[in-house]
């Protein structure tokens, strides 16, 4: 029988077998209600056709495709955190690998569902198999997606196997029979022999090596679905790496949110700590910088060439019908970058300066809101003529930006003291910003086609309902999965504890000093 550390048993194993509280059931009922509403909307779409959506000629892809790209992007978290950090033997990864892997599998499954919504007639999915030709990027995507889902499920299962055996051996006497049967069946007779551990770790290493190129290929191939067309704004060679960077970035953002929810709801203070946020935060900053660079590069060529078909797409994003989503995305990313970077740069000496006090942030936010209110609200005709010329308006908005920056400075020290809150805030900004980025890639191009009149796309209530139901399904999958299996990888954390304990007992000597150079010391004062 496999023994579990008493601390892990109390924190991770026992809560799995405790009767779920009213909050759990309330969350389940709410999520099921949203999913049920989504299912009824899907039936409506199935009955009346894609005319129920906002999609029409020439906009053949709407928010279903935006959701698809966004969700497979989020799924990159597992590949990065679990596989890449595991291969490089990064110790801090241990408590968050399970969450990252689960995010990958569930993100991919819900992403695949978006294709079903988008295609309108689900029976036509079989056409990919029946009539698919090797020249089609859609077929490459189907291949890559299938392979990524299967590999991710295998990776999650292999990492979970020793913990399933722990649950099987430490099941309380009053546990329901079906849970015993589930753990016994899935545990595959795992005993924890030396040879078994050796095989498992070799298998995990092989899968970790395989899953990284498969994950990168999926994101690249998804970009090829766009860039191998001649649509304005899509035929770009940089779209592949841009998708990969965006995927890793949104994956880390979503990971911040899910790991904090798990930490707060399941009281995992002992496992998820400030150092995990700090370490993941550095990765986040690197990805953020790369994302800004790629966004700049992506748009630079469009600005430089000013090609007749391409430029209107960019113009619609910069000052046209999609300027709200484009500048909203940029603002969210700037806020996320600020939250993660500025607090790290501030020296402790500045803490007492009034500009860095939370009350200054509150005052600045109030001033920004008042200024924005005056700028947005309709002005009387005379005042309008007097004040609302371009310079006054621009000055007003610059003032709002200045007040927001002051608010950012004021809250910086508070954010520095609360790494989890700041990480979640930055993560939420990035998740929302990356969804908008996917929107900015898909929609403006389709509404600005070659040769035919420009149009506008707005998602219909059916599309919004199905998107909300997809998010609810993702949340429900997490809720049910983490009621059946531990949210933290028990065996990995136990191994990490032993390794850290051993490392703390090793005294690392100072480096050997070099021999002093006699010529260098000649003439110097003693």
């Amino acid at each position: 029988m496999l023994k579990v550390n008493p601390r892990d048993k109390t924190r991770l194993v026992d809560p799995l077998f405790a009767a779920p509280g009213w909050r759990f059931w309330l969350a389940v009922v709410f999520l099921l209600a949203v999913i049920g509403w989504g299912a009824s909307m899907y039936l409506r779409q199935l009955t009346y056709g894609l005319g129920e959506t906002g999609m029409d000629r020439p906009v053949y892809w709407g928010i279903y495709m935006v959701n698809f790209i966004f969700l497979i992007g989020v799924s990159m978290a597992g590949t990065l955190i679990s596989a890449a950090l595991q291969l490089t033997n990064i110790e801090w990864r241990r408590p968050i690998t399970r969450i990252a892997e689960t995010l990958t599998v569930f993100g991919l499954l819900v992403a695949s569902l978006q294709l079903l919504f988008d295609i309108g007639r689900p029976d036509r999915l079989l056409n990919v198999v029946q009539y698919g030709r090797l020249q089609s990027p859609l077929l490459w995507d189907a291949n890559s997606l299938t392979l990524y889902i299967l590999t991710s499920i295998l990776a999650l299962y292999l990492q979970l196997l020793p913990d399933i055996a722990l649950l099987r051996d430490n099941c309380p006497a009053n546990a329901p029979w079906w849970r015993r049967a589930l753990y016994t069946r899935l545990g595959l007779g795992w005993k924890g022999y030396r040879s078994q551990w050796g095989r498992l770790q070799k298998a995990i290493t092989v899968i970790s090596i395989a899953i990284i190129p498969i994950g990168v290929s999926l994101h690249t191939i998804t970009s090829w679905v766009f860039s191998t067309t001649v649509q304005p704004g899509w035929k770009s060679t940089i779209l592949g790496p841009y998708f990969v960077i965006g995927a890793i970035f949104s994956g880390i953002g979503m990971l911040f949110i899910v790991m904090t929810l798990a930490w707060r709801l399941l009281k995992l203070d002992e496992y998820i700590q400030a150092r995990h946020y700090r370490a993941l935060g550095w990765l986040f900053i690197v990805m953020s910088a790369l994302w800004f660079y790629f966004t700049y590069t992506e748009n630079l060529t469009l600005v430089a060439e000013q090609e007749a078909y391409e430029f209107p797409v960019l113009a619609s994003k910069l000052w046209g019908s999609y300027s709200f989503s484009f500048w909203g995305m940029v603002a969210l990313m700037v806020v996320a970058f600020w939250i993660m970077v500025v607090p790290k740069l501030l020296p402790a000496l500045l803490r007492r300066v009034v500009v860095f006090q939370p009350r200054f942030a509150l005052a600045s936010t109030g001033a920004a809101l008042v200024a924005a209110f005056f700028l947005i609200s309709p002005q009387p005709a005379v005042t309008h003529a007097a004040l609302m010329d371009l310079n006054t308006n621009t000055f007003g908005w610059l003032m709002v930006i200045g007040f927001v920056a002051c608010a950012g400075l004021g809250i910086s020290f508070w954010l520095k003291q609360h790494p989890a809150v700041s990480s979640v805030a930055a993560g939420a900004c990035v998740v929302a910003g990356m969804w908008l980025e996917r929107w900015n890639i898909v929609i403006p191009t389709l509404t600005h086609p070659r040769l035919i009149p420009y149009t506008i796309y707005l998602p219909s209530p059916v599309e919004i309902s199905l998107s909300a139901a997809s998010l609810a399904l993702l949340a429900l999958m997490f809720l049910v999965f983490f009621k059946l299996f531990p949210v933290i990888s028990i065996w990995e954390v136990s191994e990490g504890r032993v390794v850290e304990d051993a490392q703390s007992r090793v005294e690392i000597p100072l480096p050997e000093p070099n021999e002093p150079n006699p010529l260098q010391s000649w003439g110097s004062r003693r």
Partner: protein
Amino acid sequence: MNFPMQLPVFSFFYWLVNTPGLGGICIALLSGGAIIVGSLIVRWVQGGGDSGESETYSYPTPALHKEE
């Protein structure tokens, strides 16, 4: 210069990428292969349980595989 489509190698590649249904076979081969390889890996890991060793471990450490 016209593309030398009459050459067998180009004719073959043209047939390969343009024939409907070959993509489906490709998906079936890839996903079928992944499922078979995955099952074999799981079976191999499970097979380690038949070694009949006396000591069992709830978690590994680097020292566990030192002798291998």
